[in-house]
């Protein structure tokens, strides 16, 4: 019997996409399981939207394969996915109700009542205004409401907070967290680390169309400690640090020594030990490495 809780919702196999000589995607493989909140993280132009475009059937892959719901839904898989790609796409001359009605008809959903959805995204007051009169934040929220029509098992968001002001970003993030808490499988593309870190359970890091790393957010986020040290006698300090077993990497940048150390290193003890070796530190900073640096490290 298949394990229902481990069912792959999406399986991507060696997906490639070429635009002329440019390889937008280069043999990318990725699996998303039921209930995961998967963040696809990568700099702009890394292939995030291309990947989503292919798995949603609007872009043709140059190679590779993908399958949704283990192939159980055939060509109808998109009816069980709510998705926004790049920008909120609606008919500018229609109001929120008409635009949602069009999505409802396409999704073959019976329920014509959009009150709850519009409440969720706080658009009830403007539901009779034309889409073209909306602010960017309102457009994005309407798009989020549209993804929820028919209560799909999977929702996909592509750069959901792009171009929004801080107020809009916080509103959209709250809505996304709310949606994620309903037990849906969420796939979210973003180039903003903090967003992925806050919302996602899993992360896949993409650069130049290649998958660099994937796994639970906690495992990608390394537990190493990052240290900055400075002393009048830099050479002596370097020698002292090299003799320490916990320190993995040492680099000298503009007179400041930067190093990574395993998490059992205690900065206070290090300071005391240095002093007993006759080294006086003029500068000591320690912090846990954040995903941001990890991300820059991985994508460098």
């Amino acid at each position, binding site marked *: 019997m298949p394990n229902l809780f481990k069912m792959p919702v999406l399986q991507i196999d060696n997906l490639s996409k070429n635009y002329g000589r440019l390889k937008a995607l280069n043999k990318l493989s990725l699996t998303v399981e039921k209930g995961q909140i998967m963040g696809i993280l990568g700099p702009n132009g890394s292939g995030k939207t291309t990947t989503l*475009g292919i798995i*949603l*059937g*609007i*872009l*043709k892959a140059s190679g590779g394969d993908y399958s949704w719901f283990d192939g159980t839904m055939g*060509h*109808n898989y*998109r*009816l069980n*996915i709510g*998705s926004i*790609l*790049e*920008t909120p*796409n*609606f*008919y*500018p*001359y*229609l109001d929120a109700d*008409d635009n949602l*009605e*069009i*999505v409802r*008809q*396409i*999704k*073959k*959903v*019976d329920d014509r009542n959009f009150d709850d959805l519009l409440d969720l995204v706080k658009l009830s007051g403007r539901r009779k205004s034309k889409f073209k009169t909306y602010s960017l934040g309102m457009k994005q929220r309407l798009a989020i409401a*549209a993804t929820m029509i*028919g*209560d799909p098992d999977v929702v996909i968001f592509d750069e959901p907070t792009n171009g929004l002001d801080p107020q809009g970003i916080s509103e959209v993030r709250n809505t996304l967290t709310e949606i994620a808490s309903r037990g849906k499988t969420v796939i979210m593309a973003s180039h903003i680390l903090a967003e992925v870190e806050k919302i996602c359970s899993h992360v896949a890091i993409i650069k130049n169309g290649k998958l660099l790393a994937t796994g639970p957010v906690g495992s990608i986020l390394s537990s190493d400690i990052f240290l900055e040290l400075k002393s009048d006698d830099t050479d002596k300090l370097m020698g002292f640090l090299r003799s320490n077993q916990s320190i993995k990497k040492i680099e000298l940048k503009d007179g400041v020594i930067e190093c990574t150390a395993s998490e059992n290193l205690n900065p206070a003890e290090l300071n005391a030990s240095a002093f007993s070796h006759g080294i006086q530190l003029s500068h000591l900073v320690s912090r846990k490495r954040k995903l941001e640096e990890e991300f820059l490290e991985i994508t460098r």
Partner: protein
Amino acid sequence: MKSPVKEKLMFRLIKLEWTKFRKNTVIQLLILFFFLFFPACLYFGTLIPELPSFLPSKESFFQFPDIWDYLGYAGNWIAFFFIGVASVYLLTIEVSNKTMRQSIINGLTRNEFFLSKLLSIIIISAIASAFYAVLGLIIGLIHTEGFDLVAAFDNDWAIARFFLMCLSYTSFALMLAYIFRKSGLAVFFYISYVIIIEPLLRYFIIERVEEASFTRYFPMNACEDLMPLPVMRYANAIPDNIDFAFLLEYKEAVTATIIYLALFISLSYFLFKKRDI
């Protein structure tokens, strides 16, 4: 809970197109202008000065059966412009608003989307033809003495020819929309092809090639010959340095148009299925 609405596919797609476009100002205006300008053309008919004696009197243009030819020719221009441009717009506005993309993302298959546009142009052409039929009947009844329904419809399948003509314009326009994807470009090419490019091309071929009667089978000329300028029938009798009839016989025009129709639609389909959206 989900419970898929069970409706016939065609009905579902027509309803979807209706929801998308019933409040669209451009489509509303184009169709309104079609309905206004079509009968208005008749008014210009009354302004024609006396015709040369070898032609029938202009009064006969408003009577059965000539009303069908005259009204059909007026409709030829009106349909070419308003319905053709509307057909381009039906697709290009979905490209520019990225709603075509979103429709597919939301779950419409490419086949369904393609079919929805095809159904739209068929329905628009059918409505235009119904309007032509009603208009022709009313005007004919007013101007013809005596009421004879059989004589009224003795018109060489004019209504069916009108429908085919509309379908040819709209499917050509829709094909250009699939090719160019941008309203401006597609409309510009559509209008300039029909009134400049093809006539010029024919002109150059007729000038240079001895056996040039095949140019009458060019796509838009064949389509126009479904509803030709009525007096052109008489022009066939006027001797000229061109040694072939100006117009295609109806049968020839119908056959050519149906072949082009199949070509336009299959090319559109092929392009739409193959390209990224």
